[in-house]
C-alpha cells in the first residue's frame, strides 16, 4: 500500500514537472538544437536519434513511446527521413497533441522547397525520397525558417511565454544572419569547386555556399560503394581536381581514405547533426566547424 502511494506520488510529481516546462521531443539532433535555442529554460527537449547514427535507420526503441506519450511538441522532418521508424512509435504513443495539423506538431519541411524532387520514383535508383532530399537543415537560411516554425508552435501552446520565444527566435535569426557573412566569406574563395560526399546529404549546404557537392562514393543513395564505382569516382575526382571528401560519422571512412590517397584529396569529417563530431554542441557551432574544416581542406 505504501509502495503504491509512493509510486502514485512519483507519477503526480512527474506530471507537475511536465506542466511547468513544455515537453519537446525532436526526432533528430539538429531540430533538437534549434528547439533548445528557441525554448531556453522554458522547455525540456529530448532527442531520439543519436548524432552519430544513420538517421534513416534508427531503432524504434520502446522508450521513445514513453517520451512521445507525454510530449507537448513533436518536431520531425516531415520529409520521409524518419519514415522507417517514426510511424510505429506514433501509433503506440497515441498522443493527440502531436498529431499532424495540431500546433504541437512541427513538421520542419513545411514551407521548405525541397531539392531534387524525383519526377519519377523507382527503387532502381536506390533509396530515393519521393518528396525530395530531406537533409535540408544544412542550409542556415532554412534553419531560420524551421526556428520560426518552432517558435510559433511553442507560442501557440504556451501563450504566456510567447514574447520569450519570439525574442529567442529573433536572437537566433540575428546570430545566423551575422554568421552567414562569416561563413560566406570563408567559403567564397572556393566557389564552384567540386566536393565528393559519401552520401547525398549536402545539396542544401552546397547550394547555399556555391559548392558543387555532387559526386558520391555511394553508387546510388543507400547502396554501399563498389570497387568499380570507386574507380569511376577517382577518375572524376582527378578530372575535376577535387580536394575534399565529406564523410559522416556512421560512414566507412576507409573507403573515403582509399579515394583520398589515390587523388591527394583530404577526408573531412562532417556531420548533419550537432554533437556528431567534436566541438559541435549547437547548430551554429556545427556550421562553424563544417565551414572551418572544409575551408582548411580546400586551401
Amino acid at each position, binding site marked *: 500500500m505504501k509502495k503504491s502511494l509512493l*509510486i502514485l506520488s*512519483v507519477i503526480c510529481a512527474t506530471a507537475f514537472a511536465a506542466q511547468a516546462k513544455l515537453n519537446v521531443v525532436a526526432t533528430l539532433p539538429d531540430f533538437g538544437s534549434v528547439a533548445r535555442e528557441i525554448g531556453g529554460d522554458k522547455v525540456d527537449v529530448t532527442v531520439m536519434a543519436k548524432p*552519430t*547514427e*544513420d538517421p534513416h*535507420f534508427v*531503432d524504434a*526503441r*520502446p*522508450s521513445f*513511446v*514513453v517520451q512521445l506519450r507525454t510530449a507537448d511538441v513533436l518536431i520531425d522532418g*516531415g520529409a520521409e527521413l524518419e*519514415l*522507417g521508424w*517514426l*510511424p*510505429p512509435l*506514433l*501509433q503506440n*504513443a*497515441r498522443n493527440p497533441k502531436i*498529431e*499532424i*495539423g495540431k*500546433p504541437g506538431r512541427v*513538421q520542419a*519541411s513545411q*514551407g*521548405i*522547397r525541397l531539392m531534387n524532387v*524525383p519526377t*519519377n520514383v523507382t527503387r532502381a535508383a536506390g533509396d530515393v525520397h*519521393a*518528396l525530395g532530399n530531406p537533409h535540408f537543415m544544412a*542550409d542556415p537560411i*532554412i534553419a*531560420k*525558417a524551421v526556428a*520560426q516554425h518552432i517558435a*510559433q*508552435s511553442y*507560442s*501557440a501552446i504556451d*501563450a504566456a511565454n*510567447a514574447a520569450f*520565444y519570439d525574442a529567442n527566435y529573433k536572437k537566433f535569426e540575428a546570430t545566423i544572419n*551575422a554568421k*552567414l*557573412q562569416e561563413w*560566406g*566569406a570563408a567559403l*567564397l574563395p572556393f566557389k564552384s569547386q567540386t566536393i565528393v560526399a559519401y552520401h547525398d546529404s549536402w545539396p542544401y549546404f*552546397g*547550394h547555399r*555556399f*556555391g559548392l558543387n557537392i555532387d559526386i558520391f562514393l555511394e553508387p546510388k543513395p543507400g*547502396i*554501399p560503394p563498389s570497387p568499380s564505382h570507386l574507380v569511376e569516382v577517382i577518375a572524376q575526382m582527378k578530372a575535376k581536381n577535387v580536394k575534399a571528401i565529406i564523410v559522416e*560519422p556512421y560512414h566507412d571512412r576507409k573507403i573515403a581514405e582509399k579515394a583520398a590517397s589515390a587523388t591527394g584529396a583530404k577526408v573531412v569529417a562532417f556531420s548533419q547533426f550537432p554533437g556528431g563530431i567534436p566541438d559541435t554542441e549547437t547548430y551554429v557551432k556545427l556550421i562553424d566547424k563544417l565551414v572551418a574544416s572544409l575551408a582548411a581542406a580546400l586551401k
Partner: protein
Amino acid sequence: MKKFMFVALASGALAIAGAKGAEPAASPAVPNPAASAADVEALRQQVQSLTELVQTLQKQVKEQQAASEKNNSNPPVLPQSPEPEIAAAAPSPSPAASAPPLFPTTDNAVVTNAPPPVNANGTLFPTTDASVTSTVSSTDTGSSLTQPITLTGGGNKNYMNISFDGMFALATSSERHLDRLEVGDHDPQQRGFSGRNAEIALDGAVDPYFEGFANIVLKLDNNNSTQIELEEAFMQTTSLPYGLQVKGGQFFDAFGRVNPTHPHTWEFADSPLVNGRLLGPDGLRGVGAQISWTVPVPWYSQVIFAVKNGRGGTAFSFRNPGDTGFFYGRMTIDREASALRDLLFVPRIENSFNLSDTQTILVGASGAFGSNDTGPNTHTQIYGADLLYKWKSPRAEGGFPFVKWQTEAMYRRFEAGRGLDDTFPVAEIFRDWGFYSQVLWGFKKGWVAGVRGDYLHMDHSLFTDDDMRQTRSRISVNLTWYPTEFSKLRLQYNHDFLEENAFLASRDVDSVFFQFEFILGAHGAHKF
C-alpha cells in the same frame, strides 16, 4: 515588399562602393600629389572590381525578381545555379559600422511559404485547416507502412499504401517428407522450390478516428495450386484518450514475439518448433477485438487484452475440429460457443528498459485461454514469456552493426477429452512446453548471421500417437544478405533431432534452405 528589400540591399552596397571609391582617391592626394603609375594601376583595379560588384548586384536583383515572380506563378522549382547569392560577398567589408549584410540572409527560393511572423498571442500560428490541405503528408498519420506506390510519379497523394511481398524457398533435406518435418504453414514444405508466402498488404487512415490494415496471403501448395488466406484485416482507433487503443477484425494475437509478425519479417526461414506445435502452423490469429493501454509509468509498459472466437485451424489448440475431423487422435466435436469460456482470451503485458544508450531489453508475458474440441467441456491454457535484448552501434549505418538476442518459452496445459460420443478410450491432460533462443549478429551493413536453438517437450502418452506430438529439438544457423531493405537472400542449415517414430524415416535430419524475397511498394516500418 520583396522588391523594396532588394533595392535597399543594392543601394546599401552602392553606398559602400562609393565610400571605398572615395577613400583611395583622397588619401594619396595629400602626401604625394604626383600619382605614380602604381597608384593609377591600383585605382584602376579597384574601380574595375567595384564595377564588377555593381554588375553582379544588378544581375542578382534581376534574377531574384525573376525568381520571385516565377515562385508566385509556378510550382516550386529550385534555381539550378546557386551562383547569384554568393557573388555579393566579394570585397572585404569596409570599416563602416552600418554596412548592410552582403551575404544574403534570406532566400525565397528555398523557404516558400514561411509562416507569417508570430505576434505576442501566438494567434497567427496556422491552425486553420492544415490537416486537410497539407501537401506534406496527409496519408501517413500514424500509419504503419511507409512510402506508398505512386502511380503518377512523385508525391504522397494516395489514400492507402499498397505493397506486395513475394517470398520463396529452395530446399533440400535428408528427409523426404519435409511437410512432416517443418512445423509452420509458410515454411518450406517440400524438396525443391516452395512459394508459401506471397502477400498483398494495404493500409491507411480510414478517417480521423480509425486506421485500417489488410493482409491477403496467396500461398502455393505442394501441387502448385494457389490458396488464399485473409491473414489480417482490421481497423483500429487512432485518437482515444488515456493511451487506449481498440482494434477489431481478423488479426494475429499479441502472443510473444514471433506470433504477431508476418513470416517475411522472421529472422529464420522457418517457424520455431514451439510456435508451430503449441500455437499452430498458421500462428494464433482469428476474428475478435482487442484493447490495449500504454501504462503511464516512466518506462515503456503496455497491457493488451484480446477476445477472439478461437475457432478453426488458426486457433490450433482451441476450438479446432482438425483437418480431417480428428485432433490428437480424437474425433472432434465441432461445437458452437455455449458460454463465455468457449471464447479465446489473450492477455499480454510487455515492459521495456534501456540498459544504456545502445542497449535495450523488452520483456513480455502472454497467455491464451479457451476451450478445445476434444470434448464437450475441455479447456486449454497457454502461457508464454519472452525476452529481447538488442545492442546497436552508436555509429550504425543502415541499422548495422547490431546484436539481437531473442528467447521465447511457452507452456501449454491441454485437456484432451474422449472425443465425440466418448469414442476415445481415455481423457488425458497434456502438459507440453518448449522454447527457442536465437542470436542475430548484423556484422556489416546488409549482412546478418544467426544461430537458433529449439526444444519442444510433448507429454508422453501411451494412448495418443500423433506426429504433432513428438518431443524434438533443432539447431539452425543462417546467413542473410539484405541488398537493400526491399530484398533478401538467405541460406540456412537445420539439424533436427527426432524421437524414433513412425512418421519420419530417420532420427537425425539435415536440411538446407535458400530463401529469397522481394518487396514492392510500401515497406513496413521497423517495429522494435
